[in-house]
Structures are given as C-alpha cells and as structure tokens.
C-alpha cells in the first residue's frame, strides 16, 4: 500500500503530516531523501523560501503579521515544489525548483512540510549568491547547510484549513489560462512598483503593452483584473533574479488571478482570491465533482496509479483504470479536495502531492453535499412550476433553471441566501445540489 505512514494524523486543529515516506518509484523507503546535493542558484532558493515564509506569516487583509510558516515541500523527480498559503488564506504561493538549478544529487519523490523559523530564515537571508548551498531534503524536513553553520527544521503542524484550500485552489486554477507575459525588464519594473504588503487593498487591471506590464486602475479592454496587488509584494525579494512574468486568469468573472515569475532554474507562482478579505477555503467549487457517482471508489483507484507525477496524464489514468474521462476528472477533484493532487496552471495539468487522506473528512469538509443528501432523503425537494421547491428548516426555496442552458450545475439558480449573496460563485448551494441529485445529474 503506497502512501503515508500511520503516524500521520488528522486532528481537529491541525494536520500532522508524515512523509509520504516509504513511497518512491523504487518502492517504500523509511529514510528517503528528496534531494541531497547542491544548488546552482543558492540565492534564488534562499530568497524564494524567505518569500514563502513571508507570505505564510502575513495577513494581507487588515494587515497583521502572524507566525505561521509551514510550507509544504514535495519532490517530483524533476523538481522540488514548495507550497504555502498566507496567514489570511487569500494567497497561495508555489515555488518550483527545477533540476536545472540543482547539482550533485537526484530529486526524490515525496512530501513533507517544514517550518522556516525566524532563525533559519535569518540563515537563509545571509546566503550569498556565491555561497555553497547544500540542500538536504528528507523526512526530517529541509536542511539548509552552508560552510559555516547549519539549521534543521522538523515537520510541523499544518493548519487544517490548508487542506480544503489546496483542493479549492486547484479547482479554481483549472479555469485559468495564460493571458499574457512580459520579459525581464517589464516584469522587474512591475514587481518593483508593487505596494507593500501592509498597504490598503489595491486592485488593478493588468495588461501587456509591448515589453512591459501596464497597470491600470480602470477596466480596459484586454486587461486582467488582479485583486489586491499588494498581495504580490513578497516577490520583490526576488527582483534581481526575475526573468519574466506570466499572468493567468479565467474568462468572465474570474474568482481571483494567478501571476508567476520565472527565475533562473525556478519559478514562483502566486494565486490570489477574488477579494483580499476572502480565503481560498470555502469556495465550494468542488462540490459538483464530489457529488459524482462512485467518486470515492474511483478516487482510490486513481490514487493507486499515482506516483508523485509532476504532470498527471488524465487520459492515461482513464485507460489504466478503465474509467471514462468525466469519472477520472471527478476522482482527481476528489483527491484535490484532500490535497493529494494540485493543479499546475503552466502545464494545465494536475500534479501529485501526497497528504494524509481521509475520505470521510472530504465529505465532512463539504457539508453542503451532506445537507443536500439529507434533504433528498427527507423528501424535502419536489418539482414546482419549471423548477423545484426545496424545504429547508422553516423556509422554502425555489431552484430553477431558465431555458435550455445545459446542466443544472451550469445554469441552476436558487432563491436561498447563499446563492443570492454570491450569485453562484461559491459553488452550488445544497438546494441546487438536492435538485441535481433528484434529476440524477449527480449521485
């Protein structure tokens, strides 16, 4: 059985991760090392990790410094990937260190998370571009070694909310496409112009004009709305190394935006929510996928086929598991909801990262689905006019879908408060889910 060790537990307050210790392409190992060797870009590595630490320790809405610094570190054979969320959960950051920036060792496979404390952050900050940085990444966490001193970080507790946020960020980012990019000069000028993290929320419309990135306070044709550009401020530390910038967003009313900067042998990607005050958790965007038939069983089947792939080939998985593509997508979404796969907007594909998995918790974390099933079981939904009346508590709600607009998942509207307040941008409400269950659109 591939996966996490039994020491990994999920409690109310925190998810304590063990390494996906034993699992590599060569089989289980108790004392694996994700990477053991040198990096050719010591300052890129050091400053990127400090930038991640800064993000995890910053609450960008009603700014206040916090003390949460638990990046997740995954090894995919061709890259190391460190991911984190800001203290406010409204910013997701992913640092990828590619094999081209590493030397003298092989990148392994697995996942852990590390706490970059103020002591190790200070050490990282002193690393020069000329220093010899020896990276030793294993089940103990990340070891940053210089010629003169060393510090070792142990895996630490990870906020429970990160798991839901990982699932939601991966689902949201699937709608994002590359809108434009700019080379080093334009990218650096843009990053240099960013307001500090403590600035009041400032949003902007970004567009590419020639070699530069134009920042506008108005919605101009072809621009991408970037909510809260101050949330990118940690990237300033990387300014001298930035080789280009890419901006991703979804069509229509985008639930946030993504920006990535290219670094020598590395890349830093930052995704932000649609509002600075909103966190990534609670988006509800996975609900439809989670309500698909046999999704839990299919997810287990798919999970057996994963091996820390940096890019998951869904078609291959479908063939191997004898599942249709919608079922594979739903299964992957289910795995995403538990943080076991993430979405790479550059590759437009899932990647595999192992986190302890609790299928029941996925359901628990999505109470709307449970609520919808309960409504159905209690026969609280019935057809009315061109829609459904759903009785919830003492209230009646009307679920309707105008015209022939495809599936309910795409077009249903409800009169409940969740829907009217957010116009469906936070996933279907339990009344719509109940109607979908009734029609058999989901099971």
């Amino acid at each position, binding site marked *: 059985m591939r996966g996490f060790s039994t020491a990994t537990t999920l409690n109310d307050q925190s998810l304590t991760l063990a390494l996906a210790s034993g699992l590599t392409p060569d089989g289980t190992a108790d004392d694996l090392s994700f990477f053991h060797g040198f990096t050719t870009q010591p300052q890129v590595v050091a400053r990127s990790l400090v930038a991640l630490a800064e993000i995890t320790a910053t609450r960008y809405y009603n700014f206040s410094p916090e*003390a949460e610094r638990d990046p997740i570190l995954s090894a995919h054979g061709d890259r190391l990937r460190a991911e984190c969320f800001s203290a406010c959960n409204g910013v997701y950051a992913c640092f990828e260190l590619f094999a081209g920036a590493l030397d003298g060792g092989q990148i392994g496979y697995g996942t852990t998370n590390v706490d970059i404390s103020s002591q190790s952050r200070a050490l990282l900050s*002193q690393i020069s571009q000329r220093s010899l940085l020896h990276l030793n990444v294993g089940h103990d966490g990340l070891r940053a070694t210089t010629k003169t001193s060393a510090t070792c970080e142990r895996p630490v507790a990870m906020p429970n909310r990160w798991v839901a946020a990982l699932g939601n960020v991966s689902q949201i980012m699937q709608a994002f496409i590359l809108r434009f990019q700019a080379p080093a000069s334009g990218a650096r000028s843009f990053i240099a*112009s960013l307001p500090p*993290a403590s600035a009041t929320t400032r949003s902007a419309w970004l567009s590419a004009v020639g070699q530069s990135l134009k920042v506008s306070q*108005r919605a101009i044709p072809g621009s991408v709305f970037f909510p809260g550009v101050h949330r990118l401020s940690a990237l300033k530390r990387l300014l001298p190394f930035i080789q280009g910038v890419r901006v991703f967003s979804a069509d229509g009313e985008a639930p946030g935006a993504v920006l990535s900067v290219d670094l020598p042998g590395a890349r830093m990607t930052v995704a932000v929510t649609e509002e600075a005050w909103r966190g990534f958790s609670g988006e509800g965007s996975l609900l439809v996928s989670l309500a698909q038939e046999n999704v839990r069983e299919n997810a287990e089947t798919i999970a057996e086929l994963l091996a820390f792939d940096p890019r998951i080939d869904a078609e291959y998985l479908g063939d191997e598991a004898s599942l249709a593509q919608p079922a594979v997508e739903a299964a992957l979404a289910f795995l995403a909801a538990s943080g076991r796969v993430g979405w790479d907007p550059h590759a437009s594909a899932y990647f595999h990262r192992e986190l302890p998995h609790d299928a029941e918790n996925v359901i628990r974390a999505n109470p709307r689905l449970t609520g919808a099933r309960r409504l159905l079981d209690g026969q609280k939904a019935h057809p009315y006019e061109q829609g459904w009346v759903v009785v919830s508590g003492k209230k009646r709600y009307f679920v*309707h879908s105008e015209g022939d607009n495809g599936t309910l998942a795409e077009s249903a509207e409800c009169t409940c408060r969740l829907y*009217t307040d957010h116009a469906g941008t936070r996933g279907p409400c339990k009344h719509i889910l109940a109607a979908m269950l009734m029609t058999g659109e989901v099971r």
Partner: protein
Amino acid sequence: MKVNPKLNDALAVFKELGWDQATRSDVLQLPIGTAEQQRVAVAGLKSGDWGDFGQLSENTFGWISAVDVDEQMLGLFAIRIGVDPTRAVRIARGDDNVLLQCVLLRGEDFAQKYLQQYYRSPGRMHEHALSVQGGVGIGLACALGAEPLAAIEYLKDWAAVTLHALTGEKHDIYREQRWLPQIEELAPTFLDHVRVAVDNNLPTTGPFGKVIPAAVEKGILTRGEVLKLCITGLELSVRPGDRKAYVEILTSALRITDDELLDNREIIKALIAIGEAPIIEAFAPRLIASVAADEVYEVALPALFAKTAKSRLCVLKALELRTDLDSADAFIVADRLTEITELPHKQAANVARKLLERWNLQAEQMPEESAPIRGLWQKTPDLWELPRFEVGEASSATLAQAVNELRTRDQYIYDLQGDRLLAIAVELAKKSVYQARLALSGASQETWSGVLSQWANGQTITARASEYPSHVKMVFSHVGKIPCLLSTPSYLDSTVSYDDLRHRLMQYAEVKVGVLQTDLVLALLRLDTSQVDDTSELPPEIPVVLADGNHLDRDAAQVIRDYIADPLLEDAADVNKSWLTISVSNLPPSLDGLKFPLNLQYRPDSLTRLFPHWGTAAFTGLYWCGQEVSYAGLYADDASYRAHPLPPAAVMNLLALQRPVHPKMAPWCAQGIQQAWERGLLVPGVADVAYLDWSGELTHLASFAQAMRELADQGMLSLVWPVLDQIVVAALAAPRLPAGLAEVVHTMAECVPEVLAGVETGVASKEAICVPGLRTLASRKGSSQAVEAARAAVALLPEVSTESLERPAKHKRISDAEFSEVWPQGAGVVEHVEDGSRVCGFDMDNAVSTAALPVMFSFVGLPGETFVREHTSWNWSIVSEHQALVRRIASGERETEGYVRWDGSQAVFSEHRNWREDIGGPLEGEASSWAPFLAKIIIADVATAPDPIGERNTLSNLVKESVVGCETVRHAVNELLPFEQWSPARAVYLLESAPELLPALWPMLTEPLHFAAQQPKLPRWVNRVLDIVLLHAALLNEATARGYLPQDAWNGILDIAAMKGSSAAIKKARELRDLFDSLH
C-alpha cells in the same frame, strides 16, 4: 442583558462582608468570607451581566446598572473570592496596584492565565496606546518574572510602559496611571522582551522604536546586541514604516559602520530589492562604495528600481564614483539604465546616460520609429434611439433572478433593476402571493433594509408616515392588492410616458384601489410633461393613499393634471456644490400634501433615475471619492441611459470617475463612459473643468491623466483632448501649478500625433491644435517637468496664431460690481467680545496623528487654570452649544474633563455638558453665548488637523453666518502665530477658492506677513500666504482702498519687500508692493 439568577444571593454576601461600604483602597484587607459564602458568591458572580447600555432619557443613552452596588468593587470582590480568569478579566475595572494585588493573591497559575486571557483582546485608544489595564498587565508579567508573551498586544503594552520607565514619555499612556512598573522591575527580562518583540514584528513606529535607542543610551542593552536585533527586525518587518524606523535606529542611534554593513550585506541586498527609499538611500550608496567590484551590480540592480527619483539618483551617483567597475559585467544593469534615461527626471537620466557611455553600453540607437497612427480621434457616435424598458414575464424564476441582478442590495436605490424587481413582484403577487414570497425567500435581512425578507416571511410591512417615506415599504405594504406600479419606467432612461401612466391608472380604476403616494410622485417626476397636451381621459376618483393610510384630499387624476400644468422643473433646484445637496426652493402646489421619495438634503445621489428630464442637478451622484465605498459607478452607468447628451457637469464628473475607484465600482464606471460614448451622449467640448469633482479643484491630476490616456486609447481622444487643455488653462490660473500637471501635459504630448492625424484626415477640426493652455504653459519660464513637457508637446504641433493666455488679471482693478458681490459693505464686521481667552500652545504630549493638535488656552479671569481641547475632531458642541469639550488643568488639582463656556461675562467650566441640569448629554435649552475662544479653537484646528475638511467647513459656515468676524480672527491669528505647530500656509488653504470669506478672514493674511517680517529668517510658509494675497490682490487692494482694512494692514509686505535678496518670497512681496495702492 442576561442576569445570573443567583446574582442577588452573591450581592447579599457582598454586603454581609461589608464590601458595599468599603473603598477601593480597603480591598486587600476586606474579608472574603467562609467557604460557603464564597461558593454562593461565585455562583452568582461567575456569569451574567451587571447592566446594559440603554436609553436614560429622551436623548440620552448610557449604562444602566442591574446592581445596586459599586460595580468596580463587585469586580474586585469576585476576583478575590474565586471567579475564573476569563470572568475575572471581563469584570475587572481600573488599572492600579489594587487590581494587580487582587490577581496576585489568587496565585501564580491564576495570574498567568489572567495575563494570557487579558491579552487576547485588550482595549486601547489607538494602535500604540497603553491598553486600558496595561499597567496591571505588565505589572503582572514583572511580578511573575515569566517568559515574555509572544503576543503583539502584550508587547505593545510592554513597549509603552518601558518607554515611560526609560524616558518618562507619556505620549501613548492615556489617562493618569496611578501605578506603572518601573525600570528596575522591567530590566531582568528586558533583552528577552526585545528579542520576542523583534521576532513577532512588533511595530517600531510606536514606542518600541524609541525603546531600543533609549535602552542603549541607558546602558541596558549593548550596541552589539541591539545591532543584531535591528538587522533581524529589519529583515522580518513587513511594513515599510517599521523598516524605516529600523533604518533610522541603525543609521542614527547605532551609526552602523561600513564593516558592519558588509557583514550583513546579503540581508541588506534582499531588503534593497524591496525598493523603499529609506533603505536604498541609507545603505545602497554605502554598499556600492564598499563591496568588491564584481559585487557592485548585485546591489545596484535592485536599487535602481527604487520608486523615487531621488533614491535612484543617489544610487546612480554612487555608481558614478566607482571607476573600477568592469564594464563587461555592467550589462546586468544596462536595461535598467536605459529605462532611466527615458524617465522624466533629467538629472538621473543624465547620470544614467553617462554611465552607459562609460561602459560602452549605449542602447542600440534604433531609428526613431514613430508609433503607428491608430485613428484615436474618432467621429462622435450618433445619438441613440432610446429603447423601451421591458419588465419581462412575471414568474417565481424571474422574480428570483431580479433579486440576483440587483446592482446593490444593502439599500434601495432608484434604478432599473429595482424598478424591474418591484414591477415583477407586484405583477406576480397579483396572481400568487405564494409564488412571490417563494421567489423572495432567500433575500437577506440586509437586502433593501430587510423589507423583502420580512415580506417573504409573511410579516406585515408598514410604511412610516415620516417625511420621506420609503417607496419600497409603500409598495410591499400593498403588494398583492395593487394592479401595477405607476412609476415603472416606459423607457430605459426611466421616463414614464403619459400613455403608460393613463393606462396604468385605468387598471387602478378597474380594481377600485388607491394609488400609492410614493409611486405617484415618482411617476410624476419621471413624466415628460412637455409631451402631454390632453389630460381629459384620466380616470377620476382614484384616491391617493398616503404613508399613514389616509387619503389625499384630491384624487390621482387631479394631482396629475395639476402637476402637468405646473411641474417641478430643474430651475427650482439649487445644487450646493460643497455638500452636493439639492434644495428645492419652491415645490409646485400640485404636490401639496405629498412627500418626496427621498430627502434631497442628505446628499441624494440616485437622482439620475428620479429626474430623467433634468440636467446638471440630476447627476450629483457622479462624485469621485477615491477608493472609498460608494455607488458612484452605478450612477455612472445610469448616466449612459439618458435620452439627450449629458450636460457639462455630468461629462466632467463621468470623466473624473475614471480615476481609481473602489474595485467593485470600477467596471461600472468604465462601462458607463463607454456606453455613454457609444450612445452619442458625450459631446466633445462640452465638459467643463470648473465642475471637476464639483469643486473645480485640480487634485489627483496624475491619475486623471492616466485615465484620459486610456480613454483616448479607446477612441475617445476627441472627448478628452479639450478637457486636458482646459485643465492646463485652469492650472495656469492657480497660484501655483498643481501636482500632476506634468502627467497631464505628458499625456497631451503622447496624444499629439493622433490629434494631428485627426486634423489631417478632417475628422478633427483645426481648432484642436490651438490648445491655448498647453501653448501658454510652454511659453512660461522655468524648467519644471510640466513646462518642459509642454514645450516638447508644442514642438510637435504646427504653429498657429493663437493668443497666449494671460495669468489671472491680478494687475487689473476690480469693478465695483465684482467687488460688491464678494465683499458687500459691512461683511466680516462682527462685534468682538473680549472674553479674556489667550492661546497658550498645543498639548503635544497628547497629540495623535489622526486629529488636530489639542490647542491649550487660558482665561484672564481664571488665573492658574489651563484648558486643553479634547476630542479635536468633534465640533458639534462648539457650533451648536457654544461650549468646548476640554481638559481642565489647575495647579494642585486633579485634571478634569468637562466643558468650558462663556456666560456673557466670564468663562465657566462645568464637568457636565448639559450644565443647566448638571448631567451628561446634549445641552438642553439655548446655547451659551458665543465667545472668541471658540473661534480660536476652530482657527487653530484648521491649520493642525491632518485633513481639516470639517474644520474648514465649520469656519466657513461661522463666517457666512456672521458669527465670526475679522477682529476675532485677528486676535486668534496673532495668538497662534508664535507657535510653530500652527502654519498659516495650511490655514489659508480655504481662502484660495473662497474669496467671499476674505471680509472676515483677511487677518489670516495680513497678520502672518507682519509676523514673518519680524522674524530673523522668513518662515517657509510665507510663500504660500503671499501666493494667496497675489491671487486676490485686486480684491484686497480695493477693500483696503475703501477702508475695509486698515491702511497699515499690509505693512508686512512692505517690510518683506524691503529685505535684501531675491528669494521668491521677497520677489512676490515686491510685486505686491507695486500692486497695493496703500503701499505707495
């Protein structure tokens, strides 16, 4: 309020033990009773409220106690007899040694938990102030000698207390603390606290920033320890203010050496990349000078991205001094240097160019290729044909959708979406109230103030018979009974056609119900009365239902006929540009007995859809207020649905709204102007810059210029081009060129090729190249960025014979009529009562950055007493009750807060605002007598408040109402001038655009000039004062000639003009000397 059912038993024990008769100082000696008594007391005190805030009298709200004993004593009793730490924190009052000892008496474990609980969310006056029980908090920590709490709130208190202990500074310690820990108690854990504070990012912009250098000075911390901590703190800080403070400590207090900088250079390099001026200016030049040659570019590259030109220049100069750099490595900075050569800052561009030349990195000279012409000057689109407004089908689904489509929910605004929802609700409820309620079942309590939700839940909606009844409430109190709404728009501009109105009225006649008064009035306001010629077919005897349920004394048809004959026209509306309110002086008699659907006096903003046939007055909602939350974007969108081209004020403010607004509103603003343009509603040349932000003030021009550039790129160049030149014209008329003008001119320069192309193709007229503002600016002397950019732009334009604009006609004499309009005879002359008040400074110890400095004053008749203004942003009691909230300081007495007033013969202090009744709350009865000390307070505030909009308005109103006259102002200004905190430059701001205030406020000009002339060195503010005098020179000269001002009033100018030198101030004074007849 939840009262513990066992509270009375506990109170009985409290009294049995004699606590009700004791004082706070007895607490530690008082008995706590037997175990049984303690059990009973704890049971009654461990939970529940001891009172609640409520209404004390008709106009007074306050604390209503549920216990008949001293709550402070009860709290201490509860702590002593054994309530848990959470409860103890909640009920503890006061911040003294008694409370501290009570907590300590409960043992170390309890004290530790109390400390942790208290610092979960302690209350404090402002970010850095000592919290309400901070003395006890830090005292407990000292007494426990425990590890510092890693909690920001705790550390803030520690810093405030420690700073006080080190330096005696009380700036952040509000109220007189009777007990605070001393340095001996703080010293043992001092270093630990600083470490924890640094690790936890304790802001250095507060007391902590002063604690560090003070600790070094007192020898408590060594320089080495502090240096290390400051570097760590600098690296960990996220706020620019904190980083700046650390830089200040490192460079000023610790005087960090070059070697120490080199030791920490990697950290500094990363910090330089953040791009903040204080870090770059303090460290980048020094590092560039001292690092090895091959490391210089690592420092220089990020430093060259500094946000300020000054910072970039100092980096460039440092690079210039390094002559040992290898040009082979310099390619790293080549791109950035090339960019700097193209930035407006000339000096930096020159140095960058030199460096590029030195390193043979000249950017490849591409043949100057002009940008392709995109045809941005386009023909104005034809005026659109107004479509009809279609409500659509009424069903549960469409009604639910209508809720979802509301552009804003929290309050009802008059818009198409609201009209659609109401119309569908009325139509659907006619068929099935159940379906209508079902559709609205999800509406939240916030939507339209809960009306929808309440109605959906079956509650009865009652419209209040207030002056401006809610239309929504009226509708939902009758929904299901009425056949339709009269006010539902017929067309997209919200016009109601007469035919529709008549047809709808007939439906009412059929079902024999009355029309709703709000609905009728709204329909009338939307009716195009000019198109109606026959009103004979209106059905008779349909009553008009008023908000209170009664009927109007005439039927609906009569009201309509009367209104058509005598409608409310825009002529009756007067727009108050200061407050953007509208006063309608004469409501037509046809509306007698009917109320408006909203109060025009409270900044009404959804008027666009209320008055579809009005001009300027209907667009006051187009008001730019930065990124604050407002509905301005919605009104921008509404403006694009008019039937006729927009008036000058509307076009100007629609353009103004393209500056940064709240992100929620930005798409609406952009859509509004785009639609208005496409629908032919924006006619080039119509916009009038005098209406910019409804005040004509030239502010936020840089962002305005950027927005205009973007609109030009969208094909609206013909619209924005004349506006940009108008801005330049207005700027030239101002006493000094406004900030952002350079950006405006740059934008014009960028647009010149497109303008020329437009003229060449004939789509633009030749007048487009006249641009008198731009040409006049270009002809000005000087080398400011605006002037140089204007020259560059004009160089691209063909010469035309256009008269250059002259500066405002300050050399001309003012006509009699012009003068009398601004300065009527007797204006500004108000009897000055000598109240014996004297300004004696500002209380800097209690100054806060968010309000005016607290001015201090005394009265001749009250020797030994000083009064300090309290709550400096609150002027209500001054204006309305003629008394000021102050802190009274009398030698040998405790400081007391209260109100000072003038009783007609002497100043009187009262601890109570309602001094007639000796109680709190607003003063009942007439205001006290007005006295000059009140004016002095306002005049002081005008120059010291951080954003004195309210203070300026207050002073302006006091002048306009002839409450404050020139003699009082003269006294006030002369008393304030000796204090450097009071800057005349800030005080005279309101005179720039309000010459009508000069009859009373001229001493704000004459007295400072006289004062300045007596100083050994001219103060910096004198230029600004002279600018205002120059601006209004003709008016002031005429007033002096007429004897409204003393002949010697301008002697200050004479004295300054006579000074040696050629500074700008002296030149201006000489110019004025020549202008003023009285000075010849």
